[in-house]
């Protein structure tokens, strides 16, 4: 089992739900054979800007089963948020062009207009954004923001909707919810505000929650509590969680699977435990080398990836990672700079990878990897 880096934090929310993070045993068998809840195929997100077209997401495919957590990781600008927003069509339609399929429960959401999407937003798919302070309206009470869409959807009266909002606030661990529901976002602490965001997402009992860096704006202790909360809620209700993060600690703590993104493409994907323990892509290795761990020697092996993420207005040819890759000499000829590596399954495993290097060629990482 992959031990959480957050093991040392005691949380009173759902400390007993840690068991459910265990990556493989409870979800294989029947579930895996079922059609995935979400299947993204060849998704592309382009922004037309003055400087040209930004290829934020470029031919991305992945799928997610009910009850599972898929973590999407990558450096800033790798297209994680663009992917999350594209699923619900939340991009500004004036500026973004989206292509590909976003199949949710058998329906291609990418083919729906604003009106068609409204039937999914908030009810079947809910979003949790990074910074609850800016993502919640400063001008409206929590009650108003939690119940507006709910009442419209269900026809519930004011009082019933309020009761439900209070229930949801209680469920995410907000003390004295009956009083606090009447307050404004600025009257909450950062962690409590993020709980409010999560309560908002739960109002419609969604099948899928997309959480875009839900803990990045919070301090470490609170981060752990929020992750516990999300994992606990997932265990309770069996929702699928798409967890966008750049924090590999988060991945090892709560995700079943992980998708590593670079420059708008998937570069490595698989069960979180396997990918973290034995990365098969040089970029994943680089990411793992650049994070501190609680268990490893804090000063050892901490090496950020050299160079910086590519300019998405003019991405490098071939493998987008090649200007920064320390393994490219090992690939014959100049393939890395000319040929885009396909994102394909590795033999005999559920894992996928996009690299010209032979599988298993990366030497085992020492010490620094999160274990």
């Amino acid at each position, binding site marked *: 089992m992959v031990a959480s880096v957050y093991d040392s934090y005691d949380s009173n929310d759902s400390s007993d739900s840690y068991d459910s993070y265990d990556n493989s045993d409870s979800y294989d068998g029947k579930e895996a054979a079922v059609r995935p809840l979400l299947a993204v195929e060849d998704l592309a997100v382009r922004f037309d800007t003055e400087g040209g077209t930004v290829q934020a997401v470029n031919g991305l495919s992945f799928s997610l089963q009910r009850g599972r957590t898929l973590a999407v990781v990558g450096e800033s600008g790798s297209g994680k948020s663009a992917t999350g927003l594209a699923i*619900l069509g939340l991009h500004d339609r004036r500026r973004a062009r989206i292509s590909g399929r976003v199949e949710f429960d058998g329906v291609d959401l990418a083919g729906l207009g604003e009106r068609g*999407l409204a039937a999914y*937003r*908030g009810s079947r798919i809910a979003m949790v954004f990074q910074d609850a302070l800016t*993502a919640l309206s400063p001008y409206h009470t929590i009650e108003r923001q939690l119940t*507006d869409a709910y009442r*419209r959807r269900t026809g519930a009266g004011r009082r019933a909707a309020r009761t439900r909002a209070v229930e949801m606030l209680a469920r995410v661990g907000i003390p004295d919810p009956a009083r606090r529901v009447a307050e404004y976002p600025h009257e909450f602490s950062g962690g409590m505000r993020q709980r409010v965001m999560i309560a908002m997402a739960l109002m419609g009992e969604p099948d899928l929650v997309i959480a875009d860096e839900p803990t990045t704006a919070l301090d470490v202790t609170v981060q752990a509590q929020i992750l516990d909360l999300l994992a606990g809620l997932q265990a309770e209700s069996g929702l699928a969680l798409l967890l966008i993060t750049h924090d590999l600690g988060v991945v090892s703590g709560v995700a079943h699977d992980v998708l590593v993104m670079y420059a708008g493409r998937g570069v490595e994907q698989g069960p979180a435990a396997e990918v973290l323990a034995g990365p098969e892509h040089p970029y994943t290795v680089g990411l793992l080398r650049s994070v501190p761990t609680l268990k490893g020697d804090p000063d050892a092996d901490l090496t950020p990836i050299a160079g910086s993420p590519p300019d998405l207005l003019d991405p490098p040819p071939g493998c987008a990672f090649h200007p920064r890759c320390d393994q490219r000499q090992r690939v014959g000829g100049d393939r890395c700079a000319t040929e885009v590596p396909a994102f394909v399954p590795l033999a005999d495993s559920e894992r996928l990878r996009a690299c010209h290097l032979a599988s298993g060629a990366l030497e085992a990482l020492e010490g620094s990897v999160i274990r």
Partner: protein
Amino acid sequence: MFGYILRRGLGAVLILLVVSAVTFLLFYALPADPARLSCGKTCTPQSLAQIRHSMGLDRPLAVQYWQFLHGVFAGRHFDAVWCAAPCLGYSFVNQQSVSSTLADRFPATLSLAVGASVLILTVGVGFGILAALRRGRALDKQLTAVALVGASMQVYFLGIVARYLLVDQFDLLPQPGYTGITSDPGKWFGGMLLPWITLAVVSAATYVRFTRSAMIEAESQEYVRTARAQGLPPRVVHLRYAWRGALTLVLTQFGLDLGVFLGSAVITETTFNIHGIAQLAVTSVTNLDLPMITGTVLVAATFIVVCNTAVDFCYALIDPRVRL
């Protein structure tokens, strides 16, 4: 809340004291002699001295100012005439107390200001929101073009042309002018229509542009995206969530513009022959009527202080983070 009102009230009193003192000083510094002006053609030295005495001009400035303040709070005598508190002075030019003249003139200016503000805000804000929501499309471009033309107009030019065409030539609107709202509401409304429309065309244009950009700015806020992500229909997303953010910006602008509107009232009242406070101020300056000038300046200052307080109150209503 109570503390806020107290602070605001004291602040207002202080501002009005300073304004009145400065008006006195400025007037005193002028080389002209108001007593000489109201003395007329057949002016003997005796009658001049008599007038100067009854106007209080023979006493030192500080004493004159003190008497003025005393009159405001306790009333005072001008020769045989008793001027009750709040007495802002007695106009020897008009042979009337300043307060009663102001009371006569104020409703006209107030009608003009309130009516024009309502029209400017509804038209300007309404079309501004519309342009923002349709940005980049034909309607937005048309509205922006119209707003540009409107904003380049001047009240006196547009007023005179509109009056000539709409009233004199084609008889589409009644003659502009002020009638008391209580004496004949229909006539009051008719007479105000052209001034209101003219002011609205000129100023609403700025509000179309301003609201449009405030709204576009607000639309890019993350909480608006959250509202969309919840599945709320566009109407609610725009008008309930985005608009609340834009409203604070528009309100700030309106607060700043109140003073400007007041300045332009001089032109408006002259153009449409409305005998309001602004016109009174102009004639008082021409006549060197010190008491009347002080009175109009104080009324204008009070107006601005009251309006700004109202704007602050609105802020606190709109934005719960603002504490009074």
